Every structure is written in C-alpha cells, then in structure tokens.
C-alpha cells in the first residue's frame, strides 16, 4: 500500500514513561475505508498508540499522520475529522443521552438546534430513543457504550478510533455493538480498534496487528495469523505429572511442533481436527498414560502470543504491570 491511499500512517512512533517504553517504535498503515485491529494484552501499548493518534498524547519520537494531518503539528485541524470512543464510556452521567450528544455537537461549533437534531438522529440509529431523556447514569453498560460511540460520530468523522469497544460487555451487547461497527464500516468509515479478543479482531477487522511491549510483532489477515499459530489446540490434562514426558512422546506424531508440557497439562496444535481426540486418546492409552481430560479448542489470543513471542499474553500483561508500578 502506498502512503497516499492510507488513512493512517505511523512511522517509528515511540513513547516512554520513565524507563517503561510504552511504544518502542511502531510502524503501521491503515488503508482508507479499512479496519485495523490492534490486538494485544493489557499494557502492550494499544491505548497509548490510540492516544497518540487522537492527539491526546504527544509522541517522544517518530511521526504519525491521520488523513494527511500530522498528529502533533496539525492536531487542531485533525480533531475536526476524527471520532474517539474510549475504553470506559466517556459520557456525562448527569446529562441525558440527548444533552450529551447536543453538548458534543455544540463543542464542534454547531449551533444548538442543528446539534440537537443530529443528536436525535444518532439516538434513533443507536436504539436509544426511549432513553433519550434519561440521565446517562441510569443506562446499562451496553447503552453507555452505544451513547459513547454515538458521541464519537456526532461530526460524521471519516476516521474512527475505538479503544476496546466491547471490554466488559455482556455477549448480547457485544454482538449489537459489533453490528453497529460493521454498519459504519459498510458506509466507508476507516476504523482503528484495539482489542484483547481474537474473535473480535477476527470478526471486525480486515487487518490485524499484534502488539506486544510497544511493538507490532505480527501483521496480517486473521487467516494469515492463524496459520502462524497453527491449527486447533489440543489440551490434555494428566492424572500424574510424572507421565508428562511419556504423553509428549505419545502425542508428537499428531503435531508439526513438539507438544509442550506444563505440570499436569500437555498442549499441542493438531494438524487435523477430525479424529484428533480419538487418535490422541488411543495413543495415550497405548502408552499407558492416565488422562483426566481431553479438550480440542480454537486458537486464542494466548496461543497467538505463545506462538509469536514464546510467552503467554497474561504474563506479558503482568510483567508490564510490574514495570509500570516500578516506574511510578
């Protein structure tokens, strides 16, 4: 992709807090009309990057352009053309849904009456008409997120940033928010979203960038990433940890890579889904390994991380957390 077609161009962006490198040189391109998911654990630098791209935070180094505007030198101009919906729904709890949207519209410089009309239009679109006159503090989590997203869309921005749009939502609200985002994308909005969930990235994004320790460590379509992770994951719980080595040897033929033993658990990615469980059970029985449980599941963020970085997503988040605490 040439930079001319890109709505978002990020080159070597760095940002540190003390000794913690929240962003350690990020390069990214998002095509106009595309959807990029930044996938990574807590503390990987996702939110920091969104804050840089939405002009909330000045990067220490590198450069970033959104819609051709430099995020530092042309910040004021850029703010007219982007929408941001944050991790925690940034709505005024004491204002009603309509008042919230009207206020945002007026802060864009729209007179009161048209701002209100635009607010009503958005409330209708986001299925909040009945709640329009109620203070936002009476809204459910899902309703708040929708109102927050509506607030981000007041000025019809061509580029939308969504920082963990569905974290903490119940499955139904999550699904309805996904549908809303898909609708926006269908209308041509460029979206950069961050998420901790592989299924969310999978469903919404045309491109996924995996981010860890402030760096993009892999980028591609969801299929490309899954190919790198390997296929379905088979997890075997043993009766006795002493038999782990025997289990690893028994199962080696099912996978292209060596199975990994961790206490009572043996993990491997299997080549073929069909018959994998039966085959594994048969081999383990022949090797006289006592088995407590056998599970076949799709790859998760943890597996992506394990495959790409050699460590689990949780560990990365905890290590980052510790570093942050030390820095603070």
């Amino acid at each position, binding site marked *: 992709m040439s930079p001319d077609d890109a709505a978002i161009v990020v080159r070597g962006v760095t940002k540190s*807090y003390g000794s913690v490198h929240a962003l350690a040189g990020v390069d990214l391109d998002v095509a106009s009309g595309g959807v990029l998911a930044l996938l990574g654990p807590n503390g990987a630098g996702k939110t920091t990057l969104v804050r840089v791209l939405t002009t909330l935070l000045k990067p220490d180094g590198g450069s970033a352009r959104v819609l051709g505007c430099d995020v530092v030198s042309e910040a004021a101009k850029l703010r007219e053309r982007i929408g941001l919906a944050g991790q925690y729904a940034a709505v005024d709890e004491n204002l009603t849904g309509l008042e919230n949207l009207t206020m945002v519209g007026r802060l864009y410089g729209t007179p009161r009456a048209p701002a209100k009309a635009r607010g009503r239009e958005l409330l209708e679109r986001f299925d909040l008409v009945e709640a329009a006159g109620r203070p936002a503090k009476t809204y459910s989590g899902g309703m708040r997120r929708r109102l927050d997203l509506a607030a981000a869309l007041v000025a019809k921005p061509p580029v939308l940033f969504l920082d963990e749009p569905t974290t903490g939502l119940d499955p139904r609200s999550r699904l309805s928010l996904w549908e809303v985002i898909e609708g926006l994308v269908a209308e041509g909005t460029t979206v950069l979203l961050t998420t901790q969930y592989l299924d969310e990235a999978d469903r919404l994004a045309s491109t996924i960038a995996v981010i860890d320790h402030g760096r993009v460590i892999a980028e591609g379509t969801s299929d490309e990433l899954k190919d790198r992770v390997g296929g379905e994951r088979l997890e075997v719980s043993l009766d006795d940890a002493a038999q782990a080595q025997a289990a690893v040897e028994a199962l080696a033929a099912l996978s292209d890579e060596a199975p990994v033993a961790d206490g009572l658990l043996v993990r491997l990615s299997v080549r073929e889904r069909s018959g994998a469980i039966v085959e594994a059970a048969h081999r383990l029985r022949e090797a006289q390994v006592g088995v407590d449980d056998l599970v076949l599941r799709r790859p998760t963020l943890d597996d992506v991380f394990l495959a790409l970085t050699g460590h689990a997503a949780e560990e990365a988040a905890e290590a980052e957390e510790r570093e942050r605490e030390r820095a603070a």
Partner: protein
Amino acid sequence: MRRLISDTLIIAERNLVRLPRAPELLIAFTVQPIMFVLLFRYVFGGAIRTPGYTYVDYLIPGIIVQNIAFGGFVTAIGLNEDVHKGLVDRFRSLPMSRAAVLAGRTLSDVVTNALSVGILLITGVIIGFAFHADALHALAGIALLLLFGYAFSWFFAFIGLLVSSPESANSVGFIAVFPLTFVSSAFVPVGSMPAVLKTFAEVNPFTIIVDAMRSLWLGAPAHNYVWGAFVWVLVIMAVFAPLAVARYRTTAGQ
C-alpha cells in the same frame, strides 16, 4: 477567543444542569448552610461576645465567606471525576478550546456561589441580620465575595487535579479549609484566642476577607482590610490558576 467564550459557556451550562438533578448537591448548597447559620446563631451565639455588634450581624459575613470556601469542593470533586472517567479525554479529542474545561468549571461556581450567598443573606435577614451600609457598599461586598469564590475555585480545581480520587479531593480540601476558616475572625473575635492561634488568625487571609466584608456591610473600621482582601483574592488567583492549568496539561496529557 469567540470559541473560548462559547465553549466556556457550554461547559458551565453542563456543570449547572446537573445541580437540580443531584439532590445531595442541592442540599449541600441550600439546607446545609442554613443549618450552620441557625446552629451558630442559636447554639454558640449566646456565649460569644462580639463587642459593637449583635452576634447575627457578626456571624453572617463570616459564615458566608466560609460557605463559599467550602463550595469549591464541588469543583475539586467534579474535575477529578471528569479526568478519571475519561470525559476530559473526550473534550480534548474535540476541536474545542482547551482552556474552556477549567474556565467553564470555575465560571459555573460563580453561579452556585451567587445562589448560596442569596440563600444565606435571606436566612440572615429572617433571623435579624441587617446591612449597616449603603447599597453601593453592600453590592461591593457581594462583588468581593464572588471574586473571592472565583479565586478559590482555582485552588480547588488544582486540588481536584492533584489527587487520585474524588474521596481524597474531599479530604484534602477539608483538611486545608477547615482550620483556615475556623482559625480566623469568621465566628469569634480573634482576641479571644490563645497567642499562637491569634497570631495565625491575624494574618490569615480569611480574617482579612471577613473583616473586609464587615467593613463593607456593617460599617466597621476599614483599616486596610478592603484593599487587603482584593489583593489576597488576586494573589490566590495568580498562584492557583496557573498551577491548575499546568496540572491540567500534565494530567490530561498522559
């Protein structure tokens, strides 16, 4: 500049709209000060000697100043919530004037302060307070009160941005303001205090402002109180407005 004014008004409106919807806030602005006036007037009033004045005349200027000082809590707590709940991020991602968030917040305090001054004056008049001054001096007193309230809002804005939670904004503000207002001439003549407290009370800006109010409203000897009070107001504003703005920049920019 036009943008700054219109955005400031929008933010101020947003802060004021919440008042009638939050009963606990409304009580803080109305019932609570009335209660304190009645308690001081009728519980302590009989035991406190205020030569030259009836206690109710002595009390009203003092208690209004104290009440305005405490009114700033709403700013501290509100700003703290705005930062931590992500609303400041939303504002900063909008093409609005960046100064308007703080300017609107402190401006809305002027309205709430005017409201509580009005309520306390009416309460005072009902229980026997009277102006011993002409209309011009009475109005000058009200102007001084509102200016002082505005300056103090910046102090509380700074506190609200400095601390990590609304609860600690509350306690820091309380610990700072309670001794300052009580160890002053607000409720008792400073001459009745032990030497150390008396020395502190005499230089306490609250004493100077309360005494300025008494000179404007009750015709008490002015000395330099009135000028002193205006100077203090400007000093408070000159110190805390830049501090609050700087703190807002660093807090929000992280």
